[in-house]
């Protein structure tokens, strides 16, 4: 039963899951070791054309290392990245012609203006007309500060400038690492709307975020990462698994947990505020109630568990992984 409810098993799609869509970005057995630490562990991801793909994980999960590997900033211990027809690191230069983005905080030359920075970095991708610089500055709300030195920018403004640079050569794939970090609520809203708009225009977006609701808001597909491994990936709508769980409220939750743990599996019973959440189908409910009553536990309520939000899903998945490791 436990294994049947493992979303990592049921939701991780094969690499060709884009069906008739082009795979814009994929990783194949991507692994990165730093001495004894395995930061990324046999990572298989696939991002389809037009996806706004959320890349979720707690701190230290390996998200930023993965993005560095995608950009060819670090070299994989094994495996590779494929961007359209180009393999990274072998064909990194050609691959990056199709990609824009940033990793960690976007860093620019502080003693230069935003315009000069965009001109300087942008032209590494080919000619960039001044009108395009004006256009991307406008898109991120920095048109008024284009002539200011970046050294005078706040963190949030540098984030916006990072997005402007990511878009300057109209790449097919935009990779954004925590793009709303440091932005005020209006800024976050603007960036999310920009990401949605990019998706609507057909640009593929790979969005790393620890803000789970952000992924729910803007992404159509997502992967959840923990300790260098993907624990689930698939359409965001499917990352809300059809709940096969019931919530049980009794007069003695501690005793009830023991009883129900014997019926299902101890790991299939967890606490959720005042309730016990039991991973069991409704067909098991009569037996659950009989056992509880037989053990003289008063049953106060048995209700279907409501559909999980992505946040619950994320916490549950990462907690399960941790439990698995402890076992």
């Amino acid at each position, binding site marked *: 039963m436990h294994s049947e409810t493992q979303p990592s098993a049921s939701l991780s799609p094969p690499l060709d899951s884009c069906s008739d869509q082009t795979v814009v970005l994929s990783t194949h057995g991507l692994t990165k070791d730093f001495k004894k630490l395995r930061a990324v562990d046999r990572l298989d991801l696939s991002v389809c054309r037009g996806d706004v793909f959320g890349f979720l994980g707690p701190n230290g999960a390996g998200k930023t290392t993965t993005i560095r590997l995608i950009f060819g900033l670090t070299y994989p211990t094994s495996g590779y990245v494929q961007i359209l027809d180009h393999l990274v690191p072998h064909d990194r230069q*050609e691959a990056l012609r199709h990609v824009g983005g*940033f990793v*960690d905080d976007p860093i620019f030359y502080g003693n230069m203006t935003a315009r000069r920075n965009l001109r300087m970095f942008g032209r*590494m991708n080919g000619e960039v007309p001044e009108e395009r610089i004006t256009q991307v500055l406008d898109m991120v709300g920095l048109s008024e500060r284009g002539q200011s030195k970046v050294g005078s920018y706040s963190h949030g403004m540098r984030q916006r400038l990072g997005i402007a640079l990511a878009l300057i050569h109209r790449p097919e794939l935009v990779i954004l690492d925590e793009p709303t970090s440091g932005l005020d609520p209006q800024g976050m809203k603007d960036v999310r709307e920009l990401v949605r708009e990019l998706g609507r225009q057909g640009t593929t977006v790979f969005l790393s975020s620890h803000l789970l609701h952000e992924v729910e808001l803007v992404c159509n597909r997502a992967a959840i990462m923990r300790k260098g491994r993907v624990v689930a990936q698939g359409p965001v709508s499917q990352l809300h698994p059809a709940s096969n769980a019931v919530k049980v409220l009794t007069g003695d939750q501690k005793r009830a947990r023991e009883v129900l743990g014997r019926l299902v599996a101890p790991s299939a019973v967890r606490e959720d505020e005042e309730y016990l959440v039991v991973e069991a189908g409704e067909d098991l409910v009569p037996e659950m109630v009989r056992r509880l009553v037989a053990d003289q536990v008063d049953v106060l309520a048995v209700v279907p568990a409501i559909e999980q939000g992505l946040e619950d899903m994320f916490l549950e998945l990462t907690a399960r992984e941790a439990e698995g490791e402890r076992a």
Partner: protein
Amino acid sequence: MSHISREFVKILLQKRTYFGWAGLFLVPFLITVAMRLSSGGPPDPEQGGPQFFNFIESNGLYVAVASLFALVTFLLPLLASMSGSQTIAGEAENGTLRTVLMQPVRRGSVLLAKWMVANLYIAIGLVILAVGSLIAGGAIYGLKPMILLSGQAVGVGESIWLIFLAYLFVLVGMAAVVSLAMAFSTLTNSGLTAVAAALVLVIIMLILGSLSVFDFLRPYLFTTHFDAWMNFFRQPVVWAPIRDALINFAVWSVGMTGIAWLIFRRKDILS
């Protein structure tokens, strides 16, 4: 915009660039004024003082030569170390290296452009030093035909040509220092560490070169050859030490730049 022009614009927008160049412009004025005000006269060659200093008061052209002599063992290697170390480590320290390498550029091209611009910085510094020397020396002592180390006199035009060759030679020597600093620069994310490492090695070479027990090493140390430019000021020019020096500088430059490339091409950019 090519990598070279982009790198050059970058150094032109940095204040420290102008501090280095301003220092090189001021040195000849300081030497000239010091010689003018000195009551004890120029350093005595018998006591190890450089011979060119003895001639300054007779001819301002010697200011250019004396300035080169005064700077070739420390200030110029310092500037070359700073320039070379900023190539990779300086950018890594600022975090801009990853912004550069996230663009579709070849690491080898980026490294080569940085090496060329680091040397261009030194070349401009040497031009500034030469111009400052001619202005300071010319203003106070006038520019007259030079007496060479071998005793012959040459006209002002030929003297300036010989000075040009000497400065060009020193530029090639400093390319070895830039290359060494760039190699260190690929090993660290701290510009200061790279400068310190390169300078310490230059100083160790200078010490090794001054100890007779290490005489067998002298031909291989680039610091040994820094003063070979003085052979331009003999007639006929003594080419053998100049040739040996240029070969030494070339081997160090190519070797260190090659090492830098081997490290940088596979370096994980984590800054």
